[in-house]
């Protein structure tokens, strides 16, 4: 059985401006030591999916479906059970390292707090473990950093501290929500190396949320592509990159900037339009309005997820690898 098993998860927000269906019937499985990437543009419901698992969403959210972790039902757990899981067995790394550390606490206190809470460590033990963790995440001269405040650290350094904090209790699952997006490209590579290292050395399973397929190719084992709250494609990473099936995935791959091969410049292909925010799950393909392959059927019927190649699932009536027509517009 999978470590993390999510099936038919839906999240709905009731806001003052009406309802928003943020996630619609998503199923995921995360195995031990696996790196699962969830990919999609901003607003596709990636973060909401992840946050709903630890019930970190505001009260305006209604979550339905099922999610179990290590045999425990996450959606039925009470507040104290959740607190015991959060940060201990499943931990989070957020996108914004600049604002995710408490400015009033030193590095030592920040990480020490988690250790004392979950592992009941004494002050000295927590201190030693913190040094160990800072060393693990590649912070030089860790002892000197203990007494420093977040404002004295650079962005990449803060993200390393965040990761150290997330790893403090040796969690089974690390959920990293756009961990490199706010960082410089050179720093990004370092953080990705660190995540890969964490998986190798500690055997932590990682859910990596990103909109950057370059990051995915680098580190993920398996990829889930989401669009407008639905899972539209899922496959092993090599399979997905070699044989993308959903037109959205094909478009995302074409939108990665890469070096032209010899014959001069190549225009970067974009996906025209934006991700819609839907009050109700529509009975059609949500990507149809932006899709070059859309037809009457896509606009009147929701495509089910089906296996088009071995272990490669797509929710599209017209799967295929062919690239988008040149200069296509909606």
């Amino acid at each position, binding site marked *: 059985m999978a470590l993390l098993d999510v099936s038919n998860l839906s999240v709905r927000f009731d806001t003052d401006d009406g309802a928003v269906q943020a996630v619609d019937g998503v199923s995921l499985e995360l195995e031990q030591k696996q790196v699962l990437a969830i990919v999609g543009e901003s607003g596709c419901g990636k973060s909401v999916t992840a946050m709903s698992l630890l019930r970190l969403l505001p009260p305006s959210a209604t979550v339905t479906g099922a999610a179990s972790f290590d045999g425990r039902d996450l959606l039925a757990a009470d507040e104290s059970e959740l607190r015991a899981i*959060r940060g201990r067995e499943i931990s989070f790394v*957020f996108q914004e390292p600049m604002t995710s550390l*408490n400015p009033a*606490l030193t590095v030592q206190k920040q990480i020490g*707090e988690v250790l004392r809470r979950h592992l009941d460590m004494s002050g000295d033990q927590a201190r030693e473990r913190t040094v160990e963790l800072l060393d693990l995440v590649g912070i030089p001269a860790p002892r000197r950093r203990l007494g420093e405040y977040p404002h004295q650290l650079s962005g990449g350094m803060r993200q390393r501290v965040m990761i150290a904090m997330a790893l403090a209790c040796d969690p089974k699952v690390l959920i990293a929500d756009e961990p490199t997006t706010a960082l410089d490209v050179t720093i990004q590579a370092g953080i990705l190396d660190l995540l890969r290292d964490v998986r190798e050395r500690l055997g932590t399973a990682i859910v990596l949320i990103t909109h950057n397929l370059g990051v995915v190719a680098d580190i993920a084992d398996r990829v889930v592509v989401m669009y407008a709250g639905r899972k539209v494609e899922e496959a092993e990473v090599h399979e997905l990159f070699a044989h993308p099936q959903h037109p959205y995935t094909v478009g995302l791959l074409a939108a990665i900037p890469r070096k032209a091969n010899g014959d001069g410049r190549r225009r970067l292909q974009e996906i025209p339009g934006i991700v819609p925010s839907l009050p109700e799950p529509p009975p059609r393909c949500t990507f149809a309005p932006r899709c070059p392959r859309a037809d009457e059927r896509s606009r009147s019927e929701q495509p089910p997820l089906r296996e088009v190649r071995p272990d490669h699932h797509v929710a599209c009536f017209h799967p295929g690898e062919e690239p988008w027509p040149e200069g296509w517009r909606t």
Partner: protein
Amino acid sequence: MTTAEAVLSPRARQRRRMRRRLLRRPLAVAGLVVALMFVLMALFAPLIAPYSPGKSDFSAALSGPSSQHLFGTDDLGRDIFSRVVWSARASMQAGVFATLLAMAVAVPIGLVAGYYRGWIDPVISRITDVVLAFPFLIIAVGLAAILGPSLKNATIALGIAAMPILVRVTRGETLALREEDYVKAAVANGASDFVILGRHILPNMTGTLLVQATVWIPRSIIGEALLSFLGLGVQPPTPSWGVMLSAAQPFIDQAPRLVIFPGLAIFLATLSFNLLGDGLRDILDPKTRA
């Protein structure tokens, strides 16, 4: 950064930076010095005052300033300077303890209202709104009248009267801080509500609360003077600036210094705390930092 500074711990370096920023504001420094002077005056009144505040010298009643009596004497021949010095005790006691009492009660209430929202927030907010419909001093006078005249009761009355605004300030600050990423990160790390409020929200509003303290200490000093003037605070013969003003009423024409010196003391004490508060606000609020 000089080499001497580089060897300092980060905390010491930050403290040093704060101190330098404060020193660049002469008015705030003046406020700090005068406020400290009043605090020391209260603490060491017996050493500073040349006479006991209650000691009468009827032969020298209503005499003007002299080498014997720096500020002159009152109608009972008591040394005005000594009485002004001793009165600092009542004022500081009322100012500091009323503020501490108000914070001790109001801050937790504000934290709860701002953090949990739900039904508790509107209930607390409406209650504070109702109380805020009455001016601070009116509430203090009313409560002091109910509690009975004494310095202790005046302090309690002033503390209670200060609570609604402090609740409101704390609540507002909590509303803003609970949306911070580090608070969300703490929740995701399994922190309990108590830890989040005590370790992640409260420490990040110390600056605001410090500035509030410098607002409420002088207000309570004025409040104490007013209550004592009305006979609801310090009871004669114990000296207090308010008591002195009240007793001086029949002699205003004859000996205006009976009013001037305690009045000046109230003025300087409140002004000093206010100047200090303004300076602290500038230093602690990054938005107004030049």
